[in-house]
């Protein structure tokens, strides 16, 4: 077991997930199963394989520094749960 239930709790906190006691047991088990599988991959000899930063054979996709008009305010705020003075209104975080 590489991942403990405490690790799962910490991960859940960082991901803002509310897990029940049963959830925690289940996720601890499945996350460990995934890591066991990765362990199996680690047994492969990859000395001659370049690390991949991306799965697609693409590089240097760049755009010119050009402007497009902004969304208008109503559109920008259309999905805001709440708004005030043109700003997204959110609960205090700290």
């Amino acid at each position, binding site marked *: 077991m590489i991942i403990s239930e405490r690790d799962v709790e910490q991960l859940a906190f960082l991901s803002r997930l509310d897990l029940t006691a049963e959830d925690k047991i289940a996720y601890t088990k499945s996350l460990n199963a995934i890591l066991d599988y990765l362990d199996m991959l680690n047994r492969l000899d990859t000395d001659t394989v370049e690390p991949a930063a991306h799965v697609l054979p693409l590089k240097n*996709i760049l755009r*010119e520094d050009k402007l497009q008009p902004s969304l208008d305010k109503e559109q920008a705020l259309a999905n805001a749960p709440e708004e005030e003075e*043109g700003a997204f*209104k959110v609960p205090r975080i*700290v």
Partner: protein
Amino acid sequence: MAQYETVIGLEVHIELKTRSKVFCDSTTEFGGDPNTHVCPVCLGLPGTLPVVNKTVVEYAIRAALAINCSIAEFSKFDRKNYYYPDMPKNYQISQYDLPIALGGYLDIELDGDTRRVGITRLHMEEDTGKLVHQGTITTTPFSLVDYNRAGVPLIEIVSEPDMRSPEEARRYLEKLKAIIQYTGVSDCKMEEGSLRCDANISLRPVSSTELGTKTEIKNLNSFRALQRALSYEIERQTKVLGEGGRIVQETRTWDEGKGITLPLRSKEFAHDYRYFPDPDLVPMIIDREWVEDIRSSLPELPDDRRQRYIGEYGLPEYDATILTDTKELADYFEDCVNAYPNPKVVSNWVMGDLTRLLNSGAVDITECSIGPEQLALLLQLMDKGTISGKIAKAVFEEMFATGKDPEVIVRDKGLVQISDEGAIVAIVDEILAGNPKSVEDFRAGKEKALGFLVGQVMKATKGKANPDLVNRLLKEKLQ
């Protein structure tokens, strides 16, 4: 008591002056009504994809070359994950293990010595949105979020822990600012937040080579704040260590009003960012020819300009250092020298009266009302003997306040120097008659009395008498 050595490293964020944001085509313009410089990409709407702005990469390389960094052959973007509403995506796109540039340095001058400060890395990332709290940060139930700044391109420059005093840290930041400004990739305005600085600071026993536990100080909005916060933190850490305590590794914020640093609650910065390569962005392989093109387009940088001022203009090192500190001041100075080819005289005026007036009025050199040609005209009036040096200073102040040409001020205010011998003789006679005691003193060998009498003549002529003439006439009369 144990003697401690201070160890300081700085992390500096600089906004790049591109037209559009780093991953989308919204404007980077400063200010604006909240959420009016946004698009689906920088609002993090589902289904959108970021595309890297080529000019951002170019500017990052340009800045990196100016501080002697090596440009990576292979570079990529990563996601820095955290929950805070300043980013709508719940992550910030940054660079983690393969930044665009590594391993540079810059040289700083301090008390006549040159010190080299290492630069660990330079990477690209996106700026965050701005949160406005209603009331104070601890009492407000809500925050208002403006995403205009979200996605504005930043470079972060991380120094080695090479600085040993608050003064050195300040000097480093000033020098870095000057160099980046010279490259033209940013305005570096601390007051608008286009240059921001966090400081890492720790103490260690003088003989030790290991690093002590550090604290990170945020909210440093000026050079002065940086220096004061570091001085305060040295005092605080010295006290804790002196009492046998331990430094807690934490993030602290500088309270400008109280003049102290305070711990930020650690929950705000859960330092577990779970970086991973951003699958929405593909890697960059930086073409060497492109790098060399950028290198060859770099302008003359502060160190080279300073050397030129010493070599070509024959200026003292002190003058050369101050004049080249900002590109704007150096450009102004050179325009003045082109109009009046006596660098030392121009330097004295620019570093003296002009700097004093700029500082006292909080005026930027780019908004200075005295143009280089006008300064040259004033100096020519002095050379011709039309006005005295003392009057020139008064005219200079008037030029600064009104933007008028020096001849106009001299004519309108009747400030032309009195060089008519007859007119001055009459006043000299008057002063001598009115101050028999001083006359007697001078004849008894008190040289000082002459200075007093010259002063009286200057006063009587409202400073307009030609001082050389006054001196000569007084001496003749007193023989």
